[in-house]
């Protein structure tokens, strides 16, 4: 088991290296350059050349890549070009906020999605199942900004419960927290609930077609017992996989949601970095997103190994 897990971790680290090379080369292939950008149009070629040398931009690409990678690993991914602050400072300010948002969305969506998924699997073929399946099918295909705009329209414009499109700085307490987070969390949860519920249903239905479930039915076990006691433990691996994959979708969804609600998280920081062509900041943000994705997938893999007796004994 330890060997299997170690191999997965090794693959993840290797993938991350590959990704970092890809991100670095995409963002530095064009000569559009930081020194020129920092000095502006009026700079003489000599001044630009001097700054390039000072910033290390005159070195060959692979050296710059290694330097950048070393910086990332030691927690110093460089200076942000836009406001000349260390990238690490900007990120450490924003990252906790994003994690809070994603964590809240996960805490809301996982229980809801698992309930829907297991219910529809238990009563598969019933009217409830068909209705919920259609609903989740539609929900998957809805763009986040539609969910966000409808939420704003209902809760802010019509009902006046929440303030529209503006992030309220936190004051301690449950009430203000709910008011500030309700709409972003709702929007983020919307799509992943649908995805997770569909994948959970598929995993449980898959188990319910196995011979051992037929045996349980013949034994006279109740439907609830069959699903909860027999099928669910066996479906745990695929379900955790579904949860991890859906949660990884939070990363992409956050980009739209943080922007639309002016939420000061890491995703809106990244969008700003793109608009300002602030490459060091952009590279660091992109790597954080890829890291988060790989960690989620890795956790799902490890869980699958630990929860499966066949793999565990190896």
């Amino acid at each position: 088991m330890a060997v299997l897990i170690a191999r997965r971790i090794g693959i993840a680290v290797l993938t991350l290296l590959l990704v970092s090379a890809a991100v670095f080369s995409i963002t530095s292939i064009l000569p559009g350059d930081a020194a020129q950008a920092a000095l502006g149009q009026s700079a003489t070629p000599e001044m630009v050349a001097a700054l390039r040398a000072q910033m290390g931009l005159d070195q060959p690409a692979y050296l710059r890549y290694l330097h950048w990678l070393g910086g990332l690993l030691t927690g110093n991914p460089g200076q942000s070009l836009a406001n000349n602050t260390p990238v690490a400072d900007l990120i450490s300010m924003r990252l906790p906020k994003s994690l809070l948002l994603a964590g809240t969305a996960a805490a809301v969506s996982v229980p809801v999605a698992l309930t829907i998924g297991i219910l529809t699997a238990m009563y598969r073929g019933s009217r409830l199942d068909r209705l919920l399946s259609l609903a989740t099918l539609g929900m998957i295909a809805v763009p986040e900004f539609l969910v966000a705009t409808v939420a704003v329209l209902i809760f802010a414009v019509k009902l006046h419960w929440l303030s529209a499109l503006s992030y309220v700085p936190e004051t301690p307490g449950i009430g203000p927290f709910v008011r500030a987070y309700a709409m972003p969390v709702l929007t983020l949860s919307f799509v992943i609930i649908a995805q997770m519920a569909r994948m959970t249903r598929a995993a449980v239905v898959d188990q319910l077609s196995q011979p051992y479930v037929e045996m349980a039915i013949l034994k006279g076990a109740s439907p609830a017992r069959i699903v909860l006691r027999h099928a669910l433990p066996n479906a745990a691996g695929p379900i955790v996989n579904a949860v991890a994959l859906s949660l990884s979708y939070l990363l992409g969804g956050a980009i739209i949601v943080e922007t639309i609600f002016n939420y000061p998280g890491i995703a809106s920081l990244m969008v700003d970095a793109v608009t300002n062509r602030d490459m060091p900041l952009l590279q660091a943000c992109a790597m954080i997103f890829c890291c988060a994705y790989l960690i989620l997938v890795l956790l799902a893999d490890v869980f699958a190994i630990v929860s499966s007796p066949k793999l565990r004994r190896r």
Partner: protein
Amino acid sequence: MTTPVASPSADRAPAQEGIAHRAGFWRRWPRRLSLSGLVGVVLVAFWLLVAFVGPLFAPHGVGAIVADDSFAPMSGQFPLGSDYLGRDVLSRILYGARYTIGLALAAALLASTAGTALGLFATVSGRWIDESLSRLLDAVTCIPSKVFALVMVAGFGSSVPLLIFTAALSYLPGAYRIARSLAVNLNVMEYVEVARARGEGRVYIACYELLPNMIHPMLADFGLRFVFVVLLLSGLSFLGLGVQPPAADLGSLVRENISGLPDGSPAVMMPALAIATLTIGVNLVIDSLPGRARRLTRGALR
């Protein structure tokens, strides 16, 4: 056809079987269509029609400022109201849909064809090529598609060819994975073994034995890729990083009119609803397909 045992008719049997199966499918499918499937077909047909001939029916020019006030409500003169500059929202949507659907069709077609081709290539090539190709594409998967798109736009600037390329590259690994798993399963079937024993080359096996029997699920997968690309590109346009003005796709329309949201203006809601009806329509059609293809929407992750 060098081996004497293989008569021409036996030679073609698998491919013919595939065609017969397909013909039967097209006859049977509409009759078994559920209500939701029918709704899907109608929605998709409507939007394809709009993409091709929609601008002909636009009551006003795409950039013409025709209303006296911005964010006018729906009226007889402006069926979907006016936008932030006083342009006709209906006309803007009819033109914008062409961008959204055209770009998505191009990117999804690219992703599906390349994915299928690579999947077939990996299946009929040796284990070494298969392994390394799969690993490489796995690495692409672990960059979330929106993050990848942001990096590409930052690196190269936003342009229509770049958007198509980026979207196609993001969703290629998914198409590859499905094509490969289908092809690997077919590859061990007896009729493929027979073809191999007959001395057929890899290209023949990939194109005439494997491809005809996996074209169905791949078409359904193409629909799914299309939905993903529509959502990715309109999301990018919504951030102001996709289709650049003066051109506007449906996502750009939502962005430029977002200031009308506090008044509940149709100029914000209508383009967003247009995207949703398009993507939901495609999903409903895929879900109404019988058998294996249908299962795609269950585990689908955008």
